[in-house]
């Protein structure tokens, strides 16, 4: 019953099912959600049904389906071979596009390597200087060996976030598994660098100096927990911002449609402002991710400060 709802106004990415799951798309627009086609065709239908069920609660009477935009579609489906983790999805596609755009942008911008930069070369240099200064300020001179890592993280997240602001585009960073993978890489890097630099002395990170002996066990446990929670807070921060922003935009977009020509301009005006805010947030979250990576790296590099 919810298939019909998902097929209604909230079904914004409706253009894609033709490529993603031909059978599923047809089944969803047909009459019988319960009678799924046989064989290979069932995947699409089942997936659509599950997604529609998952998203169907939030719409209320307005027919808004804010979660539909986050649906993963498999363009190359390898579930039959037991290789679902290799399936080529819209998420993989947008990550590839981001990497392609970043590479193309920097190669094109820096092709002349002119002493007096052109406008596009200044843009690339601006991004470089911005992150280089941030890394130097936060981790000192020896932190600069991690500059390529931090710069890659920043640019990758920035492109994924801003590409998500394009209508009908998929926001890769709105999935927690993606942001968590990025965060766990940072966490492992910081831990490994910390132990290589300081040996077992890295454990002193959990024992702050100047704490009364009676309080020390409690503090140490708290410090350990706060250290281990870092990948979660780092990933959830980015994911939550992207998810909440896009859901909010979709809900207000639904208000515009629901209120029609007469009153719809009020939420529309609000949406314009929100879109501006979301673009700011897209940049800010990439920046925050990079800054926190630097702050964590600084912990591992400079234990005695």
């Amino acid at each position, binding site marked *: 019953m919810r298939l019909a709802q998902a097929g209604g106004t909230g079904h914004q990415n409706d253009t894609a099912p033709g490529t993603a799951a031909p059978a599923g798309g047809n089944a969803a627009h047909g009459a019988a959600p319960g009678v799924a086609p046989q064989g290979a065709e069932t995947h699409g239908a089942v997936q659509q049904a599950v997604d529609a069920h*998952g*998203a169907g*609660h*939030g719409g209320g009477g307005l027919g808004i389906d804010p*979660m539909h935009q986050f649906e993963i579609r498999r363009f190359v489906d390898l579930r039959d071979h037991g290789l679902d983790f290799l399936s080529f999805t819209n998420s993989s596609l947008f990550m590839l596009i981001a990497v392609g755009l970043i590479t193309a942008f920097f190669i094109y911008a820096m092709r002349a390597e002119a002493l007096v930069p052109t406008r596009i070369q200044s843009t690339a240099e601006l991004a470089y200087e911005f992150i280089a200064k*941030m890394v130097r300020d936060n981790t000192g001179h020896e932190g600069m060996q991690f500059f390529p890592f931090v710069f890659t993280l920043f640019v990758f997240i920035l492109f994924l976030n801003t590409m998500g602001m394009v209508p009908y585009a998929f926001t890769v960073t709105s999935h927690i598994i993606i942001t968590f993978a990025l965060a766990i890489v940072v966490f492992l890097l910081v831990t490994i660098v910390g132990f290589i630099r300081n040996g077992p002395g890295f454990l002193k990170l959990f024992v702050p100096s100047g704490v009364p002996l009676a309080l020390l066990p409690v503090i140490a446990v708290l410090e350990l927990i706060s250290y281990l929670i870092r990948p979660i807070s780092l990933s*959830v*921060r980015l*994911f*939550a*911002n992207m*998810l*909440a922003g896009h*859901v909010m935009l979709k809900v207000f977009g639904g208000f515009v449609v629901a209120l029609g020509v007469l009153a719809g301009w009020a939420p529309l005006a609000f949406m314009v402002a929100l879109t501006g805010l979301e673009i700011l*947030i897209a940049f*800010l*979250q990439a*920046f*925050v991710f990079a*800054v926190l990576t630097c702050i964590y790296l600084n912990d591992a590099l400079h234990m005695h400060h």
Partner: protein
Amino acid sequence: MEAEAAKLIGAGVAATALIGAGVGIGIIFGNYLAGALRNPSAAPGQFPNLLLGFALAEATGLFGLIIAFIILFVF
């Protein structure tokens, strides 16, 4: 109580975490403005810290919002 009603109430309660985010963002921008008016020449240097504080405060509230979404859409 009906499970569906409890779910909606729970999601609403979880979303109150954003009260704290609102207060936090207000404190950050208010204090930045107060500091910037006392010493305008130092203000631009602290602008990145302002944005960092804003993003951190906002994210804390969004953790609660995510709980609300999980309650609404997952269960």
